[in-house]
């Protein structure tokens, strides 16, 4: 399976990379990022759709100044291409949705993704209520891309959503690292920011490790950065490969647990 993934990842890298580079080389980039226009959401149709959660106001173009939009849209597109190729999920590939934390539409998508909920992450009361209900009903939230002291704000905001939550470290034995690919060591997962292993934490239903994992938190790494740059050649294929493996496992786990 690893060889297959490598081959597929390389293929996706090549195809997606040419497009991404072309985009990067043309036009001015306000505040960094792809500056890609934010595409309108597609209506719910039952197929798996990548949902990027938004905190703060909507924007017309992706920008690095707005953390939740980081890696849009290449990150999700590349991730969905991989999921489509190697699994039977058959997700939407070119289309993804961006939904506010307060948006009741999130309840139609049991797996959601949130990027860089660091120092600028803010949860309104309405968002806290909405997300709390979402997670308690059975939603699964993947959080990625923040580090250092940003944890403090993230934790404070998460506690607005789940006041009693305990965020505990996850090790490689957790089923989430074995839901599709066998990730036997967290050392295998690239750390985007620093040396050493990335840290993964989780929030369990009722803080009981025997119960359902509601939130997986990728701290001090940026998995989706690898998804985004997998097409540019800026990141080694091996590292992109591992990042995709983590992504596949997270999404499959979210759907099956």
């Amino acid at each position: 399976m690893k060889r297959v993934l490598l081959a597929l990842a390389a293929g996706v890298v090549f195809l997606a990379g040419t497009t991404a580079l072309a985009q990067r080389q043309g036009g001015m980039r306000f505040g960094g990022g792809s500056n890609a226009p934010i595409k309108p959401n597609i209506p719910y149709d039952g197929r798996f759709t990548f949902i990027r959660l938004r905190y703060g106001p909507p924007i017309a173009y992706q920008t690095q100044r707005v953390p939740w939009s980081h890696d849009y849209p290449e990150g999700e597109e590349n991730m969905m291409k991989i999921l489509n190729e190697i699994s039977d999920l058959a997700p939407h590939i070119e289309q993804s949705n961006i939904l506010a934390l307060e948006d009741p539409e999130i309840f139609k998508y049991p797996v959601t993704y949130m990027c860089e909920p660091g120092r600028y992450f803010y949860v309104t009361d309405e968002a806290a209520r909405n997300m709390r209900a979402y997670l308690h009903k059975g939603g699964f939230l993947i959080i990625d891309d923040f580090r250092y002291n940003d944890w403090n704000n993230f934790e404070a905001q998460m506690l607005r959503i789940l006041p009693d939550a305990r965020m505990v470290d996850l090790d490689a034995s957790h089923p989430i690292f074995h839901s599709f690919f066998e990730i036997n060591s967290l050392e295998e997962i690239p750390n985007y920011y620093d040396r050493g292993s990335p840290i993964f934490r989780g929030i369990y239903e009722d803080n009981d490790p025997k119960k359902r994992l509601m939130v997986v938190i990728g701290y001090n790494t940026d998995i989706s950065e690898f998804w985004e740059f997998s097409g540019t050649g800026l990141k080694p294929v091996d590292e992109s490969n591992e990042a995709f493996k983590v992504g596949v496992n997270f999404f499959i786990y979210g759907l099956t647990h």
Partner: protein
Amino acid sequence: MFEGLFRFLFKYRPLVFEQGDFVLGASRPMVAAILVAGLIAAYALVTYRRVGRTAPRDRFVLITLRLAALALVLFCLFRPALILKAAVPQQNFLGVLVDDSRSMQIADRQSQPRSDFVRGNLVNADSPLLKALSERFVLRFFRFSASTDRVPSADGMKYAGTSTHLGQALARARDELSGLPLAGLVMVSDGDDTSDTSLDESLASIKARSIPVFTVGVGAERFARDIQVTRVETPRIALKGTALVVNIVVTQAGYAGATVPLEVEDNGRIVSSEEITLPPDGESATMRVRFTASDAGPRVFTFRIPPQANEQVTQNNTREALIEVSDRREQILYYEGQPRPEATFVKRAVEDDKNLQVVLLRRTAPNKYYRENLSTPDELVAGFPATREELFAYRGVILDGVDADSFTPEQLRMLADFVNKRGGGLMMLGGRHSFAEGGWTGTPLAEVLPVAFDATKSRTPYFSTITVRPTRAGATYPMMQIADTEEASAQRWEKMPALTAVNPIREVKPGATILLSGLDNQKKDQVVLAVQRYGRGKALAFAIQDSWLWRMHASMSVNDTTYQTFWRRLARWLVEGVPDHVVTTTTEDRVDPGEAVPLTAQVVDASYIEVNNARVLAHVTAPSGKTADVPMDWSVTRDGEYRASFTPDEEGLYSVRVGATRDQKDLGADVIHVRSSAGDSEYFDAAMRAPLLKRIAEETGGRFFTPDNAAGLPEAISYSGRGVTVVEEHDLWDMPVLLLLLIALTGTEWAYRRTRGLA
């Protein structure tokens, strides 16, 4: 009153006219003389006609009156008479059969028990009826209920029989009195025959021997005030924790529109109590009660309406039913063809149900499976079962988003046989890989599923939101109850959020039932949930791709358990009543002590193929702990069917474990329970059944009596013409009615003449 008047006018009872042959007793010379007199009279009339002074109308009236009077006199002169065959006194035997069952204690004869008729008329030596019968016949008494016995007299009846077998009683009396000159049989009963066998055979035999049966129906044909729990429809087996919805048929008289409690007890503990409104007099109404089978084992559930004021029969207010409540864990194989949210939500919905084990086989990629809730580590390790033994180990199968191409032809046949032969429950969920869209058209499973989708596959992908609502059938279906009461359930359904479908399903198979439906975006009716029985099993189509929205949707409260309730009931329904390798049945869950219990066992092997060469043994354990082994024999008429019977001699609960082996290999076992106790069927539909008693009398040449006209019984038997008889001639010329008629005719003529000035 009528009979007294008749007898005064016509001299004899109506019976004599019915039984007798009419003859004219005049001799030939007398006839000749009468004819001559008649001719003279006619001549006189002709001459009378020539009198011209009289108006034609007067003449006509006077001639008519005179001729009628003349005809009357002539009729008397012809000496009319009735010829009857009368039984010779004390030369004939008469069998008197007295109903000795419990229903004879019902006090519906002016608040007196039905048995009072027997005491007053057949026990008391001074009673005119007994005297009259004794004078004419040699009496032989029989008592009957479940059995029939010769007794010296009608005295000493206990009226405690728990069932009534009229046919058996007639046959017994016929045999007992065969060879004797028999005038007939008298059957005193309320006609409440409780036997399973038809009366036809007994009646044909009695008729063939020309034995008239005179029935005396005691009791009221309709109760003035009574409530009856007529029927209770319960499953024989239920899984522990199953919320049962039981239909109860209630009949009443005298309490129309009254509100009464309907209680359900589980081995003496009240588990449900609902207020019900009684139907109009004489009509039946079906009530639904809900309760949970929360304790495992053989449970006796009692359904009761407490006795009401002035009720005539209170014993029929209660019905009992024995339900085998199973505490085992039923396995359902949930096969998901692609990662989807539904299986995850279903898993959560049923995970706390200790009696359900949903084994998840989730295909995440080609030939890559994620397995959960396994019984053994190797379970389903190679994917979907490849052998019948492996598949048939499950009791239910759910297919969620799996293409038909995912299965081999043999696996497709196995799936169809899983329902048809194994008797399992199969459900297909909607999705892009289900029904026509999943290539299931033309497969063996297309035949099994309750929906028709051959012609519905469209070239353009179908997608629609569906507001799901229960159909008329679904609104009362136990599985569709998502709240505590039917009304609350209906209101809850109104608020359930819309779902989506990608399979346009418009029709169901003949015999299938649509439980949920809805209008789609094209305003067409979409079948959402349909069920049907197929072979030994059942199939369900749930043509929706995201019922999990009933849990996740923004409009659903976090604490709402509707989705959980719905899926638990759906999953339990799927495995409810799914047979094992040995299935034992009996006709009744209760018998009277001494009554045989017929046992039937269906035996199949691991592939659910009927086995005819098994060794099948019923191990019977009596309430006292005494055991007995009863071998069961192949019935020959049906593959895999074995029969035997045993007769309980103790009161209480009997346990019967039927085990089957073949070549020293265990095929399986089943345990059922049977109650041995006095039954109360005598009190149900206990009004006197006059039609049945009349039929017995009419078909045998006898007559039907009630206590009011039973005084005519001796004469009726005497003139029935059976036994040793003599011919009796009864003159009719001196009937008072003839004299009165003659006086009336002549008086009328006289009055007419006076009025018209003709005399």
